[in-house]
């Protein structure tokens, strides 16, 4: 317990219950080494259902055309642009936890930073999906917005377009977040690998 008027501030104990490092490692690796629980399956089923609904909506849009949304010639951008900003916001929360708390040397973040960074990455993926789905031809937009070398002459993307810089910003954000996450994960992956019994599992980790 920290004191409010004491001489010094004492850190809160991060791991209660007097666990050893080995026990902590056991606890952390357990979900990877055992069958998921019943409640996990229920949660997974709900998530899968939501995903299916989302994918059906996507498929419906792609099959019929963007006109199934309530957009018009004057209101050409709809709620998917709002969703984009929303998910970027969610992603920023993860970054806040992992990066800002790191800069302030808040060690307690270590307990949640993997989850937070994972959240960032998946939030950014979600965020990218929305404007992609919002284009008229997402199957082309998915890669035509990137300045890749091609055999169509000097065909580049328009560097003056703010939207292109959105693509760059978000993809950079995604890359950095992924790297950041992965670097933090290296020791964890190592311990999982070392504990792995099955050779295939070992190879994967």
């Amino acid at each position, binding site marked *: 317990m920290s004191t409010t008027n004491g001489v010094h501030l004492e850190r809160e104990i991060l791991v209660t219950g007097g666990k050893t490092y080995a026990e902590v490692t056991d606890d952390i690796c357990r979900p990877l080494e055992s069958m998921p629980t019943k409640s996990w399956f229920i949660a997974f089923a709900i998530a899968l259902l939501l995903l299916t609904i989302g994918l059906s909506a996507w498929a419906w849009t792609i099959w019929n055309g*963007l006109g199934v949304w309530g957009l018009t010639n004057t209101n050409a951008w709809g709620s998917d642009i709002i969703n984009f900003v929303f998910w970027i916001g969610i992603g920023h929360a993860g970054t806040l936890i992992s990066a800002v708390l790191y800069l302030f040397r808040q060690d307690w973040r270590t307990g949640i930073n993997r989850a937070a960074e994972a959240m960032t990455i998946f939030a950014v993926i979600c965020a990218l999906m929305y404007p992609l789905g919002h284009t008229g031809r997402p199957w082309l937009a998915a890669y035509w917005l990137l300045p890749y070398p091609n055999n169509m002459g000097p065909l580049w993307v328009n560097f003056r377009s703010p939207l292109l810089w959105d693509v760059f910003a978000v993809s950079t954000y995604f890359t950095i977040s992924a790297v950041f996450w992965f670097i933090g994960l290296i020791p964890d992956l190592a311990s999982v690998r070392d504990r792995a019994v099955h050779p295939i599992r070992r190879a994967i980790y």
Partner: protein
Amino acid sequence: MSNKFWMTVEQAKNPEEFAKTIPGEFTSTPVREGHENEGLERRDFMKIMGASALMASLAGCTRRPIQKIVPYVTNPEEIIPGQPNFYASADPLTGYGLLIKTREGRPIKVDGNTDHPMNKGSLHARAQAMIHDLYDPDRLRAPKVGGADTEWAEFDKQVKAALAASKGATWILTGTVLSPTLQRVIDKSGYRHVMLDSISMDDVLDGQAQSYGSRVFPRYRFDRADCIVSIDADFLGNWGSTAEYTKQFADKRRLSGNKMSMSKLIAFESAFQVTGQNSDERHAIHPNDQLFVALGLAHEVARLAGRSTEELSAFAPAAITQRTGISADVFTATAKELVKNRGRSLVVASARGANGAALQNVVNFMNSALDNEGETVDGAAYPSHQYQGSFKEFEKLLTAIRSGGVKTLIIQGVNPAYLFAESSGVKETLQKVPNLIYSGFYADETAALAKFVAAESHSFEAWGDVNPQRDIYSIVQPTILPLWKTKSLLEMLVGWNTAEGKESEGGYGAVVETWKGLHAKHGGGHAFQDWWDDTLMGGLLNGSSSSARDAKASARGFQNEGMRTAIAAAKSAVRAGAGELALVLVPSVAMGDGFQSNNALLQELPDPISKNTWGNYLAVAPETAQKNNWNDGDIVTVSTANAKAELPLYRQPGLHPGVLVSYVGYGRKFNGRIGNNVGASFANFTASSTMGIQPTLVVNGVSLSKTGKNEPLPCTQGHHTLEGRDIIFETTLDEYRKKPSSGVVHHFEGDKPPSIWSGFEYKGYKWGMAIDLSSCTGCSACVVACSVENNVPAVGKDQVQKGREMHWLRIDRYYVGDVADPEVVFQPMLCQHCDNAPCETVCPVLATTHSDDGLNQMTYNRCVGTKYCANNCPYKVRRFNWFNNNGDMNGSLEHPIPLSKNPEVTLRSRGVMEKCTFCVQRIETGKSEAKMQGRRAGEEIRTACQDACPADAIVFGDVNNPESRVAKLKKENPRGFASLEEMNAAPSITYLSKVRNRPSVAGQKSEGHESPASEHHES
């Protein structure tokens, strides 16, 4: 300045409240494509669920059907693949000269023949859309006997037998026949011929007969008139020969350089028609007061012209004011204007209800008193043949049928079963004819009554000829073989009247025979074949010199009897009851009489004034609507004692408070998948006790009740809010004479704001356009022409309701002044091809770029559909393909629609943006032709809208060529301005300000909505 124009009633009445509504502009909720009640079906949902993952991956593949291209084995003469062929022809309905563009043997575009003395290259919207009638898949494809398809041989055999059995008892009912050949064949056949116009001109014809002794439709000459008074005659919209009149009217009023004069148009209108929209002064009248307005005016004209007013004494302006509520000063001032322009003025009128001939007599009296007869009204030298129908003759036909005197009746070019009220008994009477033969395009209302239904050829598929005015002849030549088993009426009649065993000479033979007669008179000593070839190629036989046509015609003597009848009629004329509503029925610019209602382009053509599409609506003055708590889009039931119709309500500024206005030509019941049941039919309202069989166009004592339903009007303006910026400017002629640039506000010193960049230098061509808002009448021919040229699809009512129409060119309508009596400014709005295009900078994939000749280009292939460009366009001219507008998922359109497409313009797929290209295909063709000839391309490159414009308001060309018309208009014209100049998008289109020929009234009209309701309109 910027707040004086308004677009909706709310905005005019309460700009602050209106401003609050602007941010909340969501127009609809997301629903699927198709009809709202379909929803997502369970089975569809299951399919989607199962296939979603698969489809997401498949969506990346576009399916392209394998097509084999086979070259011509024997190359047809004159056809070079990829090169268009042009054929001169004529429109059998109006007699206008046409120029039909064909590609690989199929007509794809129709324009006016510039050599034709009537339309001089212009065409109205409905004629522009003809090409889509030709390729309509719902057309009759084979003749029918008793409802079953048959072969022509069998059909002809049976008809011939029927005809043989009814010698002397065969009648033929047609629309106005402009074809001398058809007329000759009918005359020769011995059938009794009756003509009936679905948009009737009986009032004019009968009035002419009574006043001058000849039942003719005069040639009106708006190009000679300095002062025009129109009483409900919509000569710029639907009355008479509109494309011809629009051209004359616009030429007379065009201001340029030293020419600082224009004619003055004063309109008295019971509906708000194109003519009133372009008038310098407009007075809303009650339709029952037409005759009184005319008589009041006649009284003043007679007085000021020094004639006796004794007989007219009951119609002194004071008395008329009492009845109509229109100030006496209006009559005196209008008459002064007319008398001042004696011999150079023109009074025209179109009767709504009973007393049509009486009204025309008064009009003829005025024209004669003003010495206009012969000058601006030519009924003697070169009268028009465009209207010859007669209800009296039609009544004779009905009487003959009832008495059993008609064994066989052939009907073509008119649809009586749709035109007349149920209670008129026309249908029952027609059913009594033992052999009813109907020749038409569709299995329509009249076809349902006929034993023999002949599938009729389009005028692009058959030979014919026209003679729309005395001495003007054109040959109608086929540009394609009949698509289906169809024949023209001429071919049928020739065949039926050919003796057994002889081979029919066909339509061609009959036309040639007629023209051999014309050759004798007009051949000028050339061999027939040479003369025929030349005439066929040029598309015109003008039997008189242009100086003879331009000269004054002889004035016919006015006979006073008609005038006396008119005065007697006025004394017993109906008067509207207090608080009673009168329903005024007028043809619309898009639909006319309804003959082309299966044409999606026309159904989706926004009405010039209301901008509503897909169906008619009930227009009512905002004042009346407010009193009764009616709102836009309220579905109302309008009824009389024996008729009822349900349709949406629309508040139309500028209407008389005692009238409801709606359009005829809707509510068809036929096999057309597009036009069937669109809007409501008013046929049953038109039965009148006083007019016999003739439909009345004003229905008194209608009542109106709300159904409680409301649906958004399929309107194309309202979601194009431009937020009251400096979009358009206007001035008056007086102000213009003092200072030609009056009214125009510039935001920058010189052309541009200061910039550190000198701008791109256009070294070769630089395409630009000038649009004269003073000339534009809002007739919308350009909108249709653009859609046909550029394969712009119609998207349907539900999509228009959501604001997804695809028109590359729209005509924005702005009101000025007070709600009860507004003035109108039209502004054709299309891609401005801005030099600093805001759309180009934001496209992430460079799908829209600028060419080095100043075009804002759109690369459909590259577009991924971010829609960022549309968001960034200040003119809101970009159009997104929300669905696949060119067919189903397999990418195919129903046969034969693909034949109507212009092969030079890509069909845009789903998910890409499109917009006006300045007809880049025409520019490129013109450039390469010029290059081959080693010269610079010039005025021969014309955009489709420019070609179509009857008013020549649109001028396109190379701005870098100082000699070009467009460069001159842009550089020298003080009226020129860039729309939204302050945005500094540097548009390539220069608008020329609107000039009205009326005195500027300080603080009244120009201050817009602040002024109180005009006192003239309180009857």
